[in-house]
């Protein structure tokens, strides 16, 4: 990566005003992008000031009254925030444990298939859920889990068990959330591991064949170590995103009956900030959360660098 950056270091020797005139087109080209990034990325960054204000939409970011750290102090006593934070952490840990390794296993499985046509068809189908919207995925889930007429409950009662009202039981939320994450993402996420596997030097397998290594040994001693750098990089990303779950999907899945496990920081911020009108406090919660997330990313990267040679920076 560092090598590719080199051409940018080139300094033009033409005087600035001549350059500006000659290359006016180039400066014009970047203009829309710069303006859009300024408005939709930098303005909201400035907008964090509202976490230190008593923000009122009519007064705006510049006219609202400053209140210092009041909202942040309130945060420490907020039991609902604490609950949301713990739920977020729970989902993060569960997705590292279950959602993260799933595509690796799937890619290894795909790799062992011998019939290319079967493999291709299965792969294409496995990408499909990635292209469905969250509304549809949650819609499928709700329909299948309905107490009356839902497939799952039809089977449960056919097997002689009591029907389960999945969406009203807090203990079911986490499995359902992780399950849908895997269902929707596993195929698409396996692409990257399959590509890494495809890049392995075939001579390694040939020499293993000569040494009489079996398939299991080849997977453990060649395939997995060869794709380790990919796994580590994606693991760092996953750890960095451990607090950034797909809370917009949770908005579709949850209801007050299961807030005790389903309410995460993202949904909490949305509920109090957009629906509830406590904008400043919600912004303070959001800001605190992004600081903690950033710290997580830095810490994982540091650990990865200490333990091995792969890191993001």
């Amino acid at each position: 990566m560092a090598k590719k950056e080199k051409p940018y270091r080139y300094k033009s020797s033409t005087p600035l005003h001549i350059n500006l005139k000659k290359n006016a087109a180039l400066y014009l080209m970047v203009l829309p992008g710069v303006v859009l990034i300024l408005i939709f990325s930098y303005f909201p960054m400035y907008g964090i000031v509202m976490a230190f204000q008593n923000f009122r939409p009519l007064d705006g970011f510049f006219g609202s009254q400053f209140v210092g750290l009041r909202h942040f102090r309130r945060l420490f006593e907020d039991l609902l925030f604490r609950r949301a934070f713990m739920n977020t952490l729970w989902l993060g840990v569960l997705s590292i444990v279950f959602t993260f390794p799933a595509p690796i296993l799937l890619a290894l499985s795909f790799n062992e298939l011998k019939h290319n046509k079967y493999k291709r068809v299965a792969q294409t189908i496995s990408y499909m859920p990635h292209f469905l919207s969250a509304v549809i995925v949650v819609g499928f889930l709700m329909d299948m889990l309905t107490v009356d007429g839902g497939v799952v409950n039809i089977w449960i009662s056919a097997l002689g068990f009591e029907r389960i009202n999945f969406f009203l039981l807090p203990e079911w939320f986490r499995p359902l959330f992780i399950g849908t994450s895997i269902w929707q993402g596993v195929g698409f996420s396996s692409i990257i591991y399959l590509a890494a596997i495809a890049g392995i030097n075939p001579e390694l397998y040939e020499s293993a064949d000569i040494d009489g290594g079996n398939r299991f040994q080849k997977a453990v001693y060649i395939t997995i170590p060869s794709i380790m750098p990919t796994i580590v990089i994606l693991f760092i990303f996953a750890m960095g995103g451990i607090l950034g779950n797909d809370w917009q999907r949770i908005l579709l899945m949850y209801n007050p009956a299961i807030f005790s496990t389903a309410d995460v920081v993202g949904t909490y911020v949305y509920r109090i900030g957009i629906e509830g009108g406590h904008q400043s406090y919600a912004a303070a919660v959001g800001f605190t959360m992004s600081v903690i997330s950033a710290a997580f990313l830095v810490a994982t990267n540091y650990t990865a660098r200490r333990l091995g040679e792969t890191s993001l920076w």
Partner: protein
Amino acid sequence: MANATNVKKLKTMYLYDWFNYAFIGLITLSFLYPLILNLSISLSDGNDPLARITLLPMGFNLESYRFLLADGRVFRYYFNSVVYSTGRTFFHLLFTSLMAFPFIIADFRGKTFLNIFMLITMFFGGGLIPYFFVVRAMGLVDSPWVMMIPGTVSAFQVIIFRTFFQNIPAELRESAYVDGSGHWRVLFQIMMPVSKALLATFGLFSIVGVWNDWFTPMLFLRRGELMPIQIFLRRLLILMDFRDAENVDVQMMFNLVTSRTIRSAAVMITIAPVLCVYPFLQKHFTKGVMIGSIKG
């Protein structure tokens, strides 16, 4: 010799292989099952609202589809989604290419500054609440532009485009410059045409992204005539709110449809275009995932 043994190995199925094939087969079925089930429900009769459909439709009719398509509003939502997806994708590809191209021209000044300007946005952000109020302050609430403009240029994608442009042989554009072409001409007539694979990949991601986006319109679009199809679906599927399908009661009386068959039909017409297109672009997007990740 090595080849012969390889071929032999390739076709011999060991116990492990049977397990593996069965495993992949089961997983594949689990991806398809909700879809098949949904299709069956959408084709079922409306006799029994609690019909125990597990695989095949109960009865067969297309009333649910006819009912949906007879309602002009559904077309409106569909049309809105088409406009938002294509519009946003157009701006996205255009602005991103425009921003990436100058980076490969040696004479362009300000690369370092712009680089930092973009990189900062990859690590810091304002969060939902400030973003909401910025968009509101820009007057984009209840404006179709909110679906097509904010966030069309992201640092990450500019970097990907830039890398792609860089790998196009410089001779190609230099000969055009020698022939007297300006920067615009070089970008639009030399660089973009040879970047079709890149544009197809990110075009697909963008179209699908907007088509499936329900959160942005939920935040910013309140007026019914601006609603995209996902908001309509959310009302039907999640909120079980049938205000957009007023005469559903009449139809139900004739046992032609149920709210459940209507929901399923709405899902089918929404995912049909996506399902028809993505398998053909597979080659591109698998490559696109790679371009995206290498830079990461």
